[in-house]
């Protein structure tokens, strides 16, 4: 093991968790969305540390755009998006805490009891990784890739169908 990756991994990991907690603790909805964004960005940074460069940068980029869009929807649909009223927007808190805690503990137990063995393998360079992914898309996973397209198509149609106001009068 080398110290650098471990430190960075821990740093970004803690950042990701901390921002993730902030998401549900802040009163301001925009803050909440931006906190989620930075949580995801930290996850992306962890990918970078884990030398999954393409995925890391992709995560960092996609989440910036998606969470910003999320921010506007938060502002549209949440009461008091500025968080000035300091209101409580949660329910079944105890149950949720318990569920979250149990999930966490169970996962941790599994992680720490399972014996992950072996030396850390080397991974190819980022350029080669991107190529491998490209070959994967065009080769073995071609159908997954095409079904992703169908998935996106379905989502686009579904979102349009439910969200777009019926056109009473067509504006130019």
């Amino acid at each position, binding site marked *: *093991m080398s110290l650098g990756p471990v430190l960075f*991994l821990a740093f970004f*990991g803690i950042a990701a968790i901390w921002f993730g907690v902030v998401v549900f603790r802040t009163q301001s909805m925009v803050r909440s969305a931006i906190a989620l964004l930075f949580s995801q960005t930290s996850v992306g940074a962890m990918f970078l540390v884990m030398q999954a460069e393409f995925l890391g940068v992709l995560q960092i980029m996609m989440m910036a755009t998606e969470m910003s869009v999320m921010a506007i929807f938060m502002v549209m649909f949440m009461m008091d998006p500025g968080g000035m009223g300091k209101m409580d927007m949660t329910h079944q808190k105890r149950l949720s805490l318990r569920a979250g805690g149990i*999930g966490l503990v169970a*996962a941790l137990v599994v992680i720490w009891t399972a014996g992950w063995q072996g030396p850390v393998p080397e991974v190819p360079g980022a350029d080669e990784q991107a190529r491998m992914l490209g070959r994967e898309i065009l080769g073995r996973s071609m159908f997954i890739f095409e079904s*992703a397209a169908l998935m996106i198509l379905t989502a*686009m149609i579904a979102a349009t169908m439910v969200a777009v106001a019926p056109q009473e009068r067509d504006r130019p």
Partner: protein
Amino acid sequence: MIPELMIALSVGAALFGVGLYGALSQTNLVMILMGVELVLASALVNTVAFWRYLHPDVTAAKMYVLIVMAVMALEMAVGFGIAVARFRARGSVEMEEARELKG
């Protein structure tokens, strides 16, 4: 014992816990989506960690990550679409009120 893997997996577990708490405790549809996003992020972390420290030769793992990312985006698109529709119909995206109005 691979410390990097342990750290990454623990982070994944923590994100999962936080996301689960959020998804269960929030009253608002949009906030619930945020919880789900966190849960999915934890899945991403775990997958990448397994790929990196156990099976770096399996490119399909990355394909899986891409698909999960797509799911995150699509879940948001559809979720917000539903939020818009529900808000238009009911004037609220609170889950409680949705239940309340059903009766």
